[in-house]
C-alpha cells in the first residue's frame, strides 16, 4: 500500500529545493536512507536548502530521523536549511525524533593477550572462591541437617518425601536399565576375552567385583548428578532470579534450612538405595549374558559369585554413595544460588553444576579407592 520514499532536487544558483514524497517509514528505511544520502550529495554546495515535505504520504519516527539527519548534515556544511510544507503532525514528529548524537560511555578495551591472561587469573580466583564457598556451604548444610536430626520435629517430612520421590523413586527405571545394560556388556566382554584361556567362569568374578565396588555406585551417582543435580540447580536458580530467595531471607527464613537441606538429605538417602538397585540390575544383566552367551548355568554363576565377593565388596560401594550424594547436592545448590538475573546465566549454571558434580563424583571415587587400598578393605 505504501509507495517508496522519493526525492527530487531542483537547483537554482545558491538555493536548492528538495521535494520529498512517498512513504518515509521504517519498513522502507533502506530506500529512505539512500534517498537522504542523495539529498545531502546533490544539495551540498547550496547556501540555502528548503526541504518540502508536502508530498510525504506517511512518516514515522524512523523516517523523521533519517530526514532530520540529512538536514543537520547539510546545516553542518554551512547551508541554511528549512522545512516547508510540513503538516502539524510532521512537525511534532520531527521535533520528537530530532537527529542527535547519543553519547554512551566507552567500555574499556583490553588487548587479546591481556584478556587471555586475565581470563586465566579470573578462573584461578574463581576456583579458589568456589572451594571456599563450597566449604562454607557444607558447614551451613551440616548445621541445618544436624539441627534437623537433633529435634526431629524440625524435619520437613512432607518436603523430604516429595524430594525422595522425585530424586529417588523416579530415577529407578533409568538407573536399573543402564546398570543392567552395562552389567551385561561387561559380562559379555569378560566371557569373550577369557574364552581364549578357557577361563570363562572367571568373568563372573570380574562382573561381581567391578559392579559392586565401582560400577553400580558410579552409574547411579552420575545419573543423579545429571538428573537431580541439574533439577536442583534450575529450581534454586530460578527462585533466585525471581527474588524468591531474597523474599525468604527478609522474612527471616533460612533458604539453606528450607530449600537446600531437605534436597541434600533426600539425595543422601536416595543414592544408597539407588546404588543397591544398580548393583542388582548389573548382576542380573551379567547373569542373563552368562547363561545365554557364556553357556554357564545359573547354579555355577551364583556359586562363583559367592566365592568371589563378600559382604565387604558390597559395602565398599554402598559407603561411598552418601558422600557422592552430598557432593552433588552441595555443588548443585551453590551453582543454583550463583545464578544472576538472566536466563543465559541459569543455563550456564546448570551446565556447570552437572559437569562439576560428575567430575567431583569421580574424584571422590578415586579418593575412596586409595583409602580402601590403604586399609586393605
Amino acid at each position, binding site marked *: 500500500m505504501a509507495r517508496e520514499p522519493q526525492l527530487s532536487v531542483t537547483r537554482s544558483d545558491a538555493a536548492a529545493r528538495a521535494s520529498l514524497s512517498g512513504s518515509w517509514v521504517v519498513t522502507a528505511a533502506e530506500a529512505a536512507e539512500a534517498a537522504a544520502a542523495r539529498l545531502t550529495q546533490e544539495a551540498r554546495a547550496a547556501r540555502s536548502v528548503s526541504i518540502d515535505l508536502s508530498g510525504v504520504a506517511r512518516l514515522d519516527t524512523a523516517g523523521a530521523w533519517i530526514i532530520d539527519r540529512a538536514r543537520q548534515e547539510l546545516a553542518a556544511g554551512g547551508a541554511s536549511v528549512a522545512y516547508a510544507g510540513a503538516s502539524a*503532525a510532521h512537525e511534532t514528529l520531527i521535533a520528537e525524533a530530532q537527529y542527535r548524537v547519543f553519547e554512551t560511555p566507552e567500555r574499556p578495551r583490553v588487548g587479546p593477550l591481556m584478556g587471555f591472561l586475565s581470563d586465566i587469573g579470573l578462573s584461578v580466583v574463581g576456583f579458589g572462591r568456589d572451594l571456599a564457598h563450597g566449604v562454607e556451604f557444607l558447614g551451613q548444610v551440616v548445621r541445618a541437617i544436624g539441627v534437623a536430626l537433633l529435634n526431629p520435629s524440625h524435619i520437613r517430612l512432607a518436603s523430604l518425601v516429595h524430594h525422595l520421590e522425585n530424586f529417588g523413586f523416579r530415577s529407578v527405571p533409568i538407573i536399573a536399565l543402564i546398570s543392567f545394560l552395562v552389567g551385561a556388556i561387561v559380562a559379555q566382554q569378560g566371557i569373550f576375552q577369557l574364552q581364549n584361556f578357557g577361563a570363562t567362569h572367571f568373568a563372573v568374578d570380574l562382573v561381581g567385583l567391578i559392579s559392586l565396588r565401582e560400577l553400580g555406585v558410579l552409574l547411579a551417582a552420575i545419573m543423579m548428578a545429571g538428573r537431580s543435580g541439574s533439577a536442583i540447580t534450575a529450581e534454586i536458580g530460578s527462585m533466585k532470579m525471581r527474588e524468591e530467595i531474597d523474599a525468604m531471607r527478609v522474612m527471616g527464613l533460612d533458604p539453606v534450612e528450607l530449600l537446600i537441606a531437605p534436597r541434600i538429605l533426600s539425595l543422601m538417602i536416595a543414592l544408597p538405595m539407588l546404588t543397591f538397585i544398580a548393583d542388582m540390575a548389573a548382576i542380573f544383566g551379567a547373569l542373563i549374558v552368562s547363561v545365554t552367551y557364556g553357556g554357564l548355568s545359573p547354579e555355577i554363576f551364583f556359586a562363583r559369585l559367592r566365592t568371589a565377593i563378600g559382604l565387604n565388596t558390597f559395602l565398599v560401594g554402598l559407603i561411598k554413595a552418601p558422600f557422592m550424594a552430598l557432593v552433588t547436592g552441595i555443588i548443585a545448590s551453590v551453582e543454583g544460588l550463583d545464578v544472576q538475573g538472566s536466563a543465559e546465566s541459569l543455563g550456564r549454571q546448570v551446565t556447570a553444576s552437572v559437569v562439576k558434580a560428575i567430575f567431583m563424583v569421580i574424584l571422590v571415587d578415586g579418593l575412596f579407592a586409595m583409602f580402601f587400598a590403604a586399609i586393605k578393605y
Partner: protein
Amino acid sequence: MNEAAGTEQGGAREVAIRVRGLTVGFGEKLIMDGLDLDVYRGEVLGFVGASGVGKSVLTRTILGLVRKRKGSIEVFGRNLDELSFEQRRAIERRWGVLFQHGALFSALTVKQNVQVPMREYLSLSDRLLDELAMLKIALVGLKPDAADKYPSELSGGMIKRAALARALALDPDVLFLDEPTSGLDPIGAGEFDELIGTLQKTLGLTVFMVTHDLDSLYSICDRVAALADRKVIEAGPIDQLLASEHPWLRAYFHGQRGERLHLAYQATRG
C-alpha cells in the same frame, strides 16, 4: 494514516480490532463469556477492571497467547483464525506489545532488546540500526547509558520504559500496553502518557491500554472500556462511564480517590 486520527463520534469509523462473542476459561473457571469489544483505528482505548478480572488474559487472547474457547477476533478486518502463517507474521509486525512485567530478554542489553524486532523484520544499515534504537530509548525517557545495561540491572520503572522502547521499535500501527504506568513515578507516568498521546496523534497509532491509572484515563484516553462480570459492561467516552450505574464503576470513579480526580478534572475543563 494520519487522517485516521480523528475521533469524531458517529459515522462509520474504521475498526482496528473487533472481538465478538469471546469465551475464555481456565479449567472449570470462565474468565470471559461472550465478550464483545471494538477498538477503533487511531484511538486510545483505556481498559479498566478490578485486579484479576481478566484484563491481561483478554490482551493475551487477542495476541494469540491464550487459546479461546469460542468467538472471533478480527484485526484490521481479518479474522485471526483464518490467516496463513505469512499473513499472521505480517499482522504481528504491525503491533507492538508492552507486557505487564516487561518481558525483556534477560540475556540481551536494552539496546539489543530494542533491536531484536528490527533485525528480525528489516534490513537496516548498522548505523541506522544503532541510531534508531538509541532514538527509541531516548523517546521513552531513558538515559543513553541505560542502553548497554542488562534487564537485571534496571529499576522497575526503567524496565517499563525499555519494554515500551521495544514495543515501539517497528513504529507499529497498534500498541498493546498492559499497565504501562504502574511502577513509574507520577512525573514519569505523565511523560509516558504524553509520549503515547503524541505518537497517537502524529503516527495515527491505535492504542489498547490496560490501566489502573485514573490520570491516564482522563488525560489521553479517547474511550474507556470496563470489564466486569466476564463481559465489557460499558465502553465509550469517559463521561459515559462516569454516568454509569454499575456498582463497580460507581465505586471505581466515585470512590474517594476517583472523586477527587474527577472534581479536579471538572475544574480544569471549566
